């Protein structure tokens, strides 16, 4: 058991590209940490550096107290589950699992019970004599896990182990993996591009983008207090609605003008974000999560409401997602778009961009199923002002303290 430390770690390739830039990160002993981000963000590279499959260009990686930069993978006492499982095709399940033990010259007598126990944990006892090609995808994935578990290493590394499974199996295996990790309490670093996976599995989640660490906190904090536009846009599904707004003074109040709507910011919002005051008179990005929008009947006047036209409705059983077109300027900087890379919202944005003659943005609101909406109907959405997020338009950083 050991923690993992990234100390100013950088990875540069021969042609100059920096896969990882100055990464500083501490994984606690026994913690389940997820590295998440869009493709090319460096998460897999970082993981492979822990394993020793990539060389560290600069900085140090420590496992426990040991600096492992120049240790061979086999000397690091880490186990890895690969995205494509990397099972030994010519060996049976039992031999696959037992290979590492064999490399450590463990006797058959000693190894067999360990293999059987691992197989039991993973439900593979009936398959011990099969070859990988005779197994289903899910079974192969479990063999890959078995290979890692049986070694009782200091660290588990997982490189998108579930991405080759179908959706339902994925959900099932997510729970399995989390359960096993808790049972064995081995320090685990898990890489995925799926933010839902990250949020449901990790004790803490590290969001990476283009080799740089954006934020490293427990999932809930990432959700409620994203550090910048990218994290705000990336975490959460459907993604946060991000609009351009101007902050103005209206007497004693600070108001936020979004398109044709003016939202008066309550005092608690201002006191929680002192820095906001310095942005008065300037444009900022304001973020509104879909669940921060509520249906407020039709055409009632009052502040704190956004008016728009319902363009699409997605019924999800207990709730519905309403796509509402409002008069406001969407924030389409890279930070936001890259964060949307997995969602359909990028598509919507593109559509709007091409056929808008005034500034229009498509908001997604998460509403109760009982709210009856009809397409092309004009509605008013009440905004929960306490849940607004504000971002600096240039740097993308959250405007907070």
């Amino acid at each position, binding site marked *: 058991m050991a923690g993992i430390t990234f100390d100013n770690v950088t990875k540069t390739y021969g042609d100059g590209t920096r896969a990882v830039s100055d990464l500083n990160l501490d994984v606690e002993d026994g913690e389940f940490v997820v590295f998440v981000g869009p493709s090319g963000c460096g998460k897999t590279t970082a993981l492979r550096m822990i394993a020793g499959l990539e060389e*560290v260009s600069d900085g*140090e990686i420590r496992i426990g*107290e040991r600096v492992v*930069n*120049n240790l*061979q993978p086999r000397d690091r006492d880490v186990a890895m589950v690969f995205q494509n499982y990397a099972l030994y095709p010519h060996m049976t399940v039992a031999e696959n699992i037992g290979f590492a033990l064999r490399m450590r010259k463990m006797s058959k007598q000693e190894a067999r019970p360990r293999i059987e126990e691992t197989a039991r944990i993973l439900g593979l006892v009936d398959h011990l004599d099969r070859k990988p090609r005779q197994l289903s995808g899910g079974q192969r994935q479990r063999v890959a896990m078995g290979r890692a578990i049986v070694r009782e290493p200091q660290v588990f590394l997982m490189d998108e182990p579930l991405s080759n499974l179908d959706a339902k199996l994925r959900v099932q295996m997510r729970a399995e993996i989390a359960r096993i990790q808790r049972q064995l309490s081995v320090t685990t670093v898990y890489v995925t591009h799926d933010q839902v996976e990250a949020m449901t599995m990790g004790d803490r989640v590290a969001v990476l983008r283009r080799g740089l660490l954006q934020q490293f906190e427990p999932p809930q904090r990432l959700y409620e207090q994203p550090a910048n536009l990218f994290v705000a846009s990336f975490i959460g599904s459907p993604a946060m609605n991000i609009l351009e707004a101007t902050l103005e003074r209206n007497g004693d109040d600070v108001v936020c003008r979004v398109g044709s709507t003016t939202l008066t910011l309550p005092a608690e919002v201002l006191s929680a974000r002192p820095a906001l005051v310095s942005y008065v008179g300037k444009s900022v990005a304001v973020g509104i999560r879909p669940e921060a929008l509520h249906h407020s009947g039709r055409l009632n006047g009052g502040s704190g409401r956004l008016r728009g036209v319902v363009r699409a409705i997605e019924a999800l059983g207990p709730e519905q997602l309403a796509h509402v077109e409002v008069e406001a300027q969407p924030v389409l900087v890279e930070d936001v778009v890259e964060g949307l890379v997995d969602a359909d919202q990028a598509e919507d944005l593109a559509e709007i961009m091409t056929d808008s003659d005034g500034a229009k943005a498509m908001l997604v609101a998460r509403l109760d199923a009982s709210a009856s909406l009809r397409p092309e109907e004009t509605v008013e959405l009440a905004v929960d002002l306490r849940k607004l997020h504000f971002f600096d338009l240039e740097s993308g950083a959250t405007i907070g303290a």
Partner: protein
Amino acid sequence: MSGTAASTARGEPRKLRTTKSAVRRHRAGRMLTYSFLAAVALIYLFPFLIAIATSFKTEPNATANPLSLAPSPPTTSAFHQLYQDQDFLLWVKNSLIVTLSVTFLRVFLDSLAGYALARLRFRGRGAAFATIVAVMAVPGVVLLIPKFLMIRQLGIYNTYYGMIIPLLVDAAGVFIMKNFFESIPTSVEESARIDGAGIFRIYWSIVLPMARPALITIFILAFQGSWNELAHFIISAQSTSLNTLTKGVAQLASGQLGSGNRYPLKLAASTLMTIPVAVLFFVFQRRIMNVASGAVKE
């Protein structure tokens, strides 16, 4: 890379030793690979360097200093002898005639057969293919006498026909073309058919131009194969006026042309003989090595 401070913030000493020795081990491994590669490459290439060098040596020099790469004195007398005393140019001419004929004909015939096997539907297609493969599995050497008998029987012994025609069968080439044609989407041919093109026209004007990569492959393999062929020329012709380079040099070497110990002459001949194939190889290395490793990408 790793710092030189003796302790971390937590007050534990770092394992500096592991760092340095691991780096050394890594570089040593790379050095080992390179030195192996270089050593083996030397073993593989040095003989050819000797061959080239010896072609420019005098006979006494070749006998006295067989290992040296520097002729002393350097001379082109071996080449002159090839030209004057031996029928070297005649051999070149014969080799060219045979090789170019075999190469172009093979390209044509293999593509025809490959196309038929790949695209045209007719009874017995599978059997035809199986036969081709099966018959070509017969070891070549076993066929020396049989081929001779037939060539003699047909009266084409000691003629170019006898040297060229039997070499036109090439199961490997048919295989390559068949595989290639199967990999082209049928939509191109189908649209040509709708436009009214007949089968041969489709083959000739539509599909064949698309097959250029595979055709080049066949060309190269056929050229190499027929240029380097020896046994077939031994059994298909006897007259020295039909000697190809391989046969001529073989007779030089085995002393049939009364050459005795004349190494510079023989090595000059074999070096010159290798040049066309070598050039072809260097130009098309990647393609040749891809095919040889069993993967015809096109």
